[in-house]
């Protein structure tokens, strides 16, 4: 009950921070575009261009839209939701606020877990709204009810959860919203994409084994949202997923960072 109160309070906090509403505004815009502007029947020409006619063409078109939605949703989550949750921990740690929270009958471990759960559920529901509506509109317009697209909600929530765990840790240690945002953006937009394509780019330039080993090492320990997006795409397009290693190692990263956060928070004086 106390845990739930804290989880729900994160929802209220996110809504109070206007930036989160930006996510809803843009999601709603996308849903409206799908609802009024995109008409699967009228894009027959596009279907023809894709080299297949009839039902097969429509399937391809729908899947094409779905794959595009992965990247769009991912970008929306990272920009709006990540920014909005990154102030959760620093604002909780403000003097006069944390004191009162810690005087309540809830353990420090549960405080961290409640903040984590709150942020993850927030993103989950946001994705249910966006992906759910897009799916219903696409399906009813095309008559092709493609259920694997719905897994996107879970995969993107997982990607978010992994990065969010790092945001919690940085927030606890630095008390800084800006730093949390900077580090996570650096990771998500620079480090992870570069590591993802390391073989095609860096390794073709640098042949030194030691350097390659170090870069691989970072690839394996750091979270891999780019790989998870690829897996999500593969699942939607029906291609075989090469390896789930990126998922397992990213989840391990998340668990390790969360444990470190709990450990740090428990020892700290406020």
């Amino acid at each position, binding site marked *: *009950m106390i845990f739930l109160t*804290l989880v729900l309070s994160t929802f209220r906090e996110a809504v109070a921070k206007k930036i989160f509403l930006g996510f809803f505004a843009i999601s709603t815009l996308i849903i409206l575009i799908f609802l009024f502007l995109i008409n699967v029947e009228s894009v027959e020409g596009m279907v023809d261009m894709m080299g297949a006619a009839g039902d097969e063409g429509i399937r391809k078109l729908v899947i094409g839209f779905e794959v595009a939605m992965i990247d769009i949703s991912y970008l929306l989550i990272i920009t709006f939701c990540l920014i909005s949750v990154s102030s959760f921990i620093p604002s909780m740690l403000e*003097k*006069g606020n944390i*004191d009162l929270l810690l005087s309540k009958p*809830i353990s420090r471990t549960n405080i961290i877990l409640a903040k984590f759960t709150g942020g993850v559920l927030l993103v989950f529901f946001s994705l249910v709204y966006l992906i759910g509506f897009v799916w219903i509109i696409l399906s009813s317009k095309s008559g092709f009810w493609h259920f694997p697209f719905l897994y996107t909600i879970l995969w993107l929530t997982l990607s978010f959860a992994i990065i969010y765990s790092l945001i919690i840790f940085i927030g606890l240690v630095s008390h800084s919203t800006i730093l949390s945002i900077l580090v996570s953006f650096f990771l998500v937009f620079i480090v992870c994409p570069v590591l993802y394509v390391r073989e095609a780019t860096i390794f073709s330039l640098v042949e030194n084994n030691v350097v390659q080993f170090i870069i691989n090492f970072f690839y394996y320990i750091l979270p891999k949202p780019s790989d998870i997006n690829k897996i999500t795409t593969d699942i939607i397009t029906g291609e075989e997923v090469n390896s789930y290693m990126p998922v397992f190692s990213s989840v391990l990263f998340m668990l390790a960072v969360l444990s470190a956060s709990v450990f740090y928070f428990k020892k700290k004086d406020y």
Partner: protein
Amino acid sequence: MNIITTKNLSKEYSSKSFSKEKILALNNFSFEVESGEIFGILGPNGAGKTTLIKILLGITHRTKGEVKIFDNEINTETYKFKVGYLPENHKFPNYLNGEQVMEFYGKMSGMNTAGVRKKTDELLKIVDMEKWRKTKIKKYSKGMLQRLGLAQAMINDPELIFLDEPTDGVDPIGRKEIRDILEDLKDRGKTIFLNSHLLSEVELICDRVAIMHKGSLVKSGRVDEITHISDNYIINCSDISEAIMNKLMMNFKATILSINEFHFKSDNIDELNRLIDFIRQNKILIRGIQREKNTLENMFINLIGSQN
């Protein structure tokens, strides 16, 4: 029965990150708070008052020593169901309104919605914040925030309430109202633990006080005991001859202030009356005898002054 007991409680803070230098915020601090009393902690800035409260509530970790609250060690969270707390410079989430603050902290203390509603109505009336309940707290004045903070500390009908500077920023009428609220809580058998700089106020409501300085306990006891240790009298009379002055100084250790005024210190009524007999026998007329009571403030200033 003791509600709070500490034994040799110590707390070291590291003064800067990555530095070995330590600040001793509490130094072998042992004290007890009895059930049903209003207990006040006094001390200059940085004495360790807030640190003490934070350790009792598990917000800060002690370096060593023992703490018992409700007769139990404080290594679980359960005792916090029966505790209320008003932190110094509290900061509630500013997107909430008064009512929502009460609801959030009530539920965080394990209450259900119906219980919180009922208590909120009652308490907001008591602290005179009813008409502000729907207003966002970022529009509150300092005194209003303090009133809401006090109501919040009472939401779960706690057995033990910690108040860190409860009258900070509150006007004199408000302070009187807060004192009445605290008296009322005491009448209902609650225990109140109070930190305050306002000594006259502490004097008015506390049953017992502890004075701390640089993390150590300097003195503790009932307020009247502490302030009545010795009585000073100023005696105003007709002119005193030199011979009598000498006798007053020799026999009664009086301090002559002027030709018709002297200072006499004694906690013994008989001795005071012997002095009066003496001056009357010497045909000196008494104009007035004024008893100087040692206020908590005087006591505090002398005590802390002598420690520095």
